[in-house]
């Protein structure tokens, strides 16, 4: 028996496809991102292999030097964080000697995750809700904060990098609280910090503690440029570079606070 072929006119076809596209556009991102997560999960192996090839092709230095350089950055970042923590602890000791101090990461564990897919503003990693990840958790790369979890599925998660234009993270700079806003060019900005606070190029920028997500200051970046704001002359216009080379990361650590709860 001959099959009956359904004939659809071109205008009708375009109308249906455009309609379906607009539904996709206007549907909540939480729903539509399931397609992206599913793709990343199904093609995890070729995507991560391809990314590793791209990474190894991009590294210009001889491998031995590259490892040394990376280790150097890791240690520098760790040292900066520990120094700041020490300074913080000393200050607390002086003021609140009666209180028992909380050891950083006392109630935390780290979820090691490999990067499946990377773009200048975000990563998709191979850990998800099943590994205890939730939205808002901080993500470490080479011992420095590189972003936060923005979306989670069962086995994958999306990391919004600090350099993403959507990212807004509370930071501490020169012992002052400020907001760091990603600018998209592998850098971020701190604006509206009054010029009365002394800051200079090379100063460390720390992610501020957040209840339930981070209990100590951790390095996030360093000031690359510092000048007075053109629009508001009494405030700084500060450009911050991430403390590690985000493009060269192949894995990250997610800070999971109070994992037993």
């Amino acid at each position, binding site marked *: 028996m001959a099959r009956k072929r359904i004939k659809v006119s071109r205008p009708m076809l375009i109308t249906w496809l455009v309609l379906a596209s607009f539904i996709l556009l206007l549907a909540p991102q939480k729903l539509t*991102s399931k397609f*992206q997560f599913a793709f990343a999960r199904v093609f995890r192996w070729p995507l991560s292999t*391809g*990314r590793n090839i791209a990474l190894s092709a991009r590294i210009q230095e001889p491998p031995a030097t590259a490892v040394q350089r990376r280790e150097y950055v890791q240690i520098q970042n760790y040292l900066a964080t520990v120094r700041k923590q020490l300074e913080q602890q000393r200050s607390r000791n002086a003021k609140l000697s009666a209180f028992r101090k909380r050891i950083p990461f006392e109630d935390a564990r780290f979820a090691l995750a490999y990067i499946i897919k990377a773009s200048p503003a975000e990563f998709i990693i191979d850990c998800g809700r099943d590994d205890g990840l939730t939205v808002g958790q901080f993500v470490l790369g080479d011992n420095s904060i590189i972003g936060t979890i923005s979306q989670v599925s069962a086995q994958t998660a999306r990391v919004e990098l600090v350099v993403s234009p959507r990212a807004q993270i509370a930071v501490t700079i020169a012992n002052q609280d400020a907001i760091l806003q990603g600018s998209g060019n592998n850098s971020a900005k701190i604006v509206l910090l009054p010029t009365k606070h002394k800051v200079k190029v090379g100063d460390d920028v720390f992610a501020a503690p957040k209840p339930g997500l981070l209990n100590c200051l951790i390095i996030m970046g360093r000031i690359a440029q510092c000048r007075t704001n053109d629009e508001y002359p009494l405030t700084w216009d500060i450009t911050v570079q991430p403390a590690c080379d985000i493009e060269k990361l192949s894995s990250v650590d997610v800070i999971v606070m109070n994992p037993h709860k």
Partner: protein
Amino acid sequence: MHWLRFAVLILAVTVLQASVVNTIAVTTLDIKPDLLLILLVFFAIYRNTKDAIITSFTIGFAADIIGPVMGPQVISFGLFGTLLAYLHRVIAIRKMPYQSLAIFLIGFLSGFLAHLLGLLKSRPSTANTFAVIFGISVYSSLVGPFLFLPSAWWMRIKTDRFSRH
């Protein structure tokens, strides 16, 4: 149209675009050729209008899958792919320079539209958005026509025969 071959090609190109293509990215703006855009123009030129419409929207969907948000690319690729398919019924895009020009124009216009639609999904823009769109369009237009031949071989399409149905 060999739809199974088309599906395999799109999946392979989507995975390549999201991974290995970063190897040939240039400048600090991370400008790389858009293989899906090249395929969009290829199908709009070498297939009949109906196939071109379906492939345009499908390629747009694939571009969204590896993009930051779902929706903008499927609309922009779908609309401009359809437009190119209709335009091809009037003007034959046979020579390589014209194909390059088509890739550049479709890349720039679809990138611009996708950017505007992305704003609807509260996707903030960066200062260099237009430079990136321009760079990607130029890069794609330079490498694009050279990828038409392997694509035609895989899809069993004869490039010397034009279809305008």
